[in-house]
């Protein structure tokens, strides 16, 4: 049984995993790129080793080097986090071949679920409903896809076979625009996953994106930890999640049915460790398998908050060969949890990524607030990695309490040095439709506007005018002073000049 774990990741998730290891008395090994020497995961680990230059391909994607470091440092296991190497079956296999434990599922399960086509065919065979599409067809050419599209019907989605996180995904309204969109989806997929294959899926309109967290041990026990509502997305990137889902609400029968289907999907590939089954749920409460994420999810903390289960610690216990310490009957969801993904991007400039150095940081704290982050005052947000800099998670006894708590936490949160999407989340928390739970996966793009304001009494442009005028006034006064100081400073030089002229 291992007592030292290498964490093959960076940022908030590396810190999250480090903390779990520390709290289990397990030693930690960090790996880092040249851009990350000062990163928190390097500072908090027991050991840290350089991988290479900043770009992922030369650092965090170097599987062989990571395995070599694990072996040399005496780590007995590798935790891949999410992203990077987390869903690469070949990497998981290489870890096992090196005699190390992989804190995640078996390579065969990653492979089966990693190819979205195979995944859909597999779970479909196990009796799990899937969204209509080109599942199980392998690599299709543009010509094939264009022929199949009208059979599925428009609107539809082009999705990356190796994909996830919205990359390589395009919405297609009609056959005419499809060739261009196919091309850009393939290009993005190629760049993100090294695999340009795509498939088609019917776009379910007005649908919700709801997922089920599962945990499975090596002894055949599989439990689900209830659902997460992940419909609030932009460009198919999740921005905000909550647990439980208001849409499912008191429909305990639906919750348990989805949970059982999720367990069945996991069992179909002999799944072990933590995983997530993503479903689309239409207005009539029909649900369809979308994909399985064979790794820890960004949004796992909200499930931790409502179930009391520490998912990362469970992952480690499972990888150590332990039997799950609880059964399905022990799992209870209590209260309500929300998560805002705080990204370094400017919501007022079309969510463009923002880079820079964090010069000042004030974290929200107090009851019911959890922040998972890898940044600190003085840390650099570089263009090399994704824009997630922090996750703000709140817990309340009710959804209303959680929303009020999130509002105050967002208002308290100060990050100076990069622009963040905190104002987006503030607007979201004030949105009446959000509060009423009236949203689907299209909500942010179709019904949301950073320019309109929600809360009563706001906006307060007059106060903004006072702020701006006082700052402008100070700047004017300060620049006047600086000029005067410069005049004094240069006076010596005038003397020098006179002396030089005299002796020319």
């Amino acid at each position, binding site marked *: 049984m291992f007592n030292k774990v290498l964490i093959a990741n960076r940022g908030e998730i590396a810190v999250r995993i480090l903390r779990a290891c520390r709290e289990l008395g397990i030693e930690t090994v960090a790996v880092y790129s040249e851009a990350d020497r000062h990163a928190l995961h390097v500072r908090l680990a027991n050991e840290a080793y350089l991988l290479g230059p900043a770009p992922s391909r030369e650092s965090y994607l170097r599987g062989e080097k990571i395995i070599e470091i694990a072996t040399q440092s005496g780590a007995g296991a590798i935790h891949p986090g999410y992203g990077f190497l987390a869903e690469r079956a070949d990497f998981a296999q290489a870890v096992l071949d090196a005699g190390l434990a992989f804190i995640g599922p078996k390579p065969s399960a990653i492979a089966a679920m990693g190819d979205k086509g195979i995944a859909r065919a597999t779970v479909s065979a196990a009796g799990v409903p899937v969204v209509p599409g080109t599942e199980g067809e392998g690599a299709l050419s543009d010509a094939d896809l264009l022929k199949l599209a009208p059979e599925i019907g428009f609107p539809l989605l082009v999705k990356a076979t190796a994909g996830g996180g919205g990359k390589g995904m395009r919405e297609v309204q009609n056959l005419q625009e499809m060739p261009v969109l196919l091309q850009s989806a393939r290009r993005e997929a190629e760049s993100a996953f090294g695999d340009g294959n795509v498939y088609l899926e019917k776009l379910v309109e007005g649908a919700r994106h709801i997922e089920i967290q599962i945990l499975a041990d090596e002894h055949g026990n599989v439990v689900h930890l209830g659902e997460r509502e992940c419909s609030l997305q932009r460009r198919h990137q999740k921005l905000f999640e909550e647990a439980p889902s208001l849409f499912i609400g008191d429909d305990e029968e639906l919750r348990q049915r989805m949970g059982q289907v999720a367990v069945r999907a996991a069992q179909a590939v002999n799944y072990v460790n933590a995983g997530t089954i993503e479903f689309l749920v239409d207005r009539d409460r029909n649900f369809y398998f979308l994909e399985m994420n064979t790794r820890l999810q960004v949004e796992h903390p909200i499930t931790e908050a409502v179930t009391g289960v520490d998912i990362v610690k469970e992952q480690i216990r499972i990888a150590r060969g332990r039997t799950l310490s609880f059964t399905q009957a022990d799992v209870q969801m209590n209260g309500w949890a929300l998560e805002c993904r705080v990204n370094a991007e400017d919501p007022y400039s079309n969510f463009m990524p923002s880079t820079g150095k964090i010069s000042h940081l004030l974290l929200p704290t107090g009851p019911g607030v959890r922040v998972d982050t890898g940044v600190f005052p003085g840390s650099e947000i570089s*263009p090399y990695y994704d824009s997630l800099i922090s996750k703000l998670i709140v817990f309340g006894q009710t959804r209303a309490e959680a929303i009020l708590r999130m509002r105050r936490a967002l208002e308290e949160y100060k990050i100076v040095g990069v622009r963040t999407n905190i104002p987006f989340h503030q607007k979201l928390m004030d949105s009446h439709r959000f509060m009423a739970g009236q949203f689907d996966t299209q909500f942010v793009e179709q019904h949301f506007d950073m320019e309109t304001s929600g809360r009563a009494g706001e906006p307060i442009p007059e106060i*903004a005018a006072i702020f*701006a005028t006082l700052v402008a006034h100070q700047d004017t006064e300060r620049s006047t002073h600086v000029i005067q100081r410069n005049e004094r400073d240069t006076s010596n030089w005038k003397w020098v000049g006179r002396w030089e002229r005299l002796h020319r």
Partner: protein
Amino acid sequence: MKYITTINDREYSVEILDERRVVVDGVCYAVDFESVSGQPVFSLLVDGKSYEAYIYDSDDALEVLLRGALYSAAVVDEREHRLRSAFGSGPTQSGEYYLKAPMPGLVIDVPVTDGQEIAEGDVLLILESMKMQNELKAPRAGVVSRIKVAVGESVERRQTLLSVV
């Protein structure tokens, strides 16, 4: 000192009497204005009400991020305002538009060519940063000129990428 501050086409007359008093459109307020920790974060008490805002310099204006809303404020002193009113505001809408990189990144695609006519909203360039591909679009119609970068090139923030004339 008297200023005219414009937010969303609404003009506010703001007179700063002294450190503690400001007159806005004829109404006098007690103010207490402090920078926090030497950062572009400011705390303002207006007749006892407490506000906090980030304030950033943007090209022609100050951006005030206040309670989750962004206000773009143009501040000019009274004298300058009179001059501008008399002679019209300076910059004209025509002229060359320079597309600058909004962040450091890698050029993934430049789907236009020199001399190509484009419409407003056309994609001029695709820039990858933080694992996202960002489409930079034309703010107005025109003709592409002086493309300065090529696919595969790394660019710095604010670097000029191409122009639209």
